[in-house]
């Protein structure tokens, strides 16, 4: 392919550290507290979360009465460093995961 498909961008600036965002995306206890929304009646369940390269993940739930499911494989797990990064602008864990899951949906 000579040209990449343009991805769907969903962007949020969240006043939290990379570690906090990373944890929210990877902690099985945190994921149900935001993924799939928090409207009345929304549910989210972590079916599987094997956080390592080649590990699988599967989440399912209902959002506004409709069921959804996200599953796939972690291609790369880069745990954010807890120390200060110097100069570089690190990639956010959240963005990487979001892209990975939409890629898996195709």
């Amino acid at each position: 392919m000579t040209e990449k498909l343009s991805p769907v961008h969903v962007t949020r600036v969240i006043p939290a550290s990379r570690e906090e965002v990373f944890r929210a995306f990877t902690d099985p206890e945190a994921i149900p507290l935001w993924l799939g929304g928090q409207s009345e009646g929304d549910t989210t369940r972590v079916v599987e979360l094997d956080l390592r390269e080649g590990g699988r993940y599967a989440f399912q739930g209902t959002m506004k009465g409709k069921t959804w499911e996200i599953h796939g494989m972690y291609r790369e797990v880069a745990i954010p460093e807890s120390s200060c990064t110097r100069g570089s602008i690190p990639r956010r864990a959240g963005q990487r995961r979001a892209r990975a899951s939409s890629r898996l949906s195709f």
Partner: protein
Amino acid sequence: MVNSHSLDAAFSALSDPSRRAILARLARSERTVGELAEPLPMSLPAVSKHLRILEQAGLVAASREGRTRRIRLVPAALAPAQDWIARHRAFWEESLDALALYLERARASKEPTEKSPDPPARTSRPARSPTPRRPLPSLARARAGPGTLRRKSSPARQPR
């Protein structure tokens, strides 16, 4: 529910720049195969092959006038792909709204004593609160090497 095969076909058909160029031209008006081939740096059979893929995905339709095949866009065929994108966008918009709220609350509950009258200015990043953070056993183990963490959790919230 959108037929996943038709979605696969539509996205796969759209994944090629030549086919997108063909669709873009068809969006203006219908064309013969020869007209479509003219600006493209490829043979007529190659163009026909692309058209066949677009046709199979339902994105274009052909009609025959004598010896000429006229190709036209079928705009409705893009609707499932557009719906799919819209649904996924809505899902992530909603999720990230909830994520922002969740992290905000997590912060608030972690720093109950550090009351400042103004919302913390982010020009200079405040020092990390010395409060010990909840340990991350899963991450520690993930760091230790592959195969050390495998979690199949029970339902965190019961579906109704």
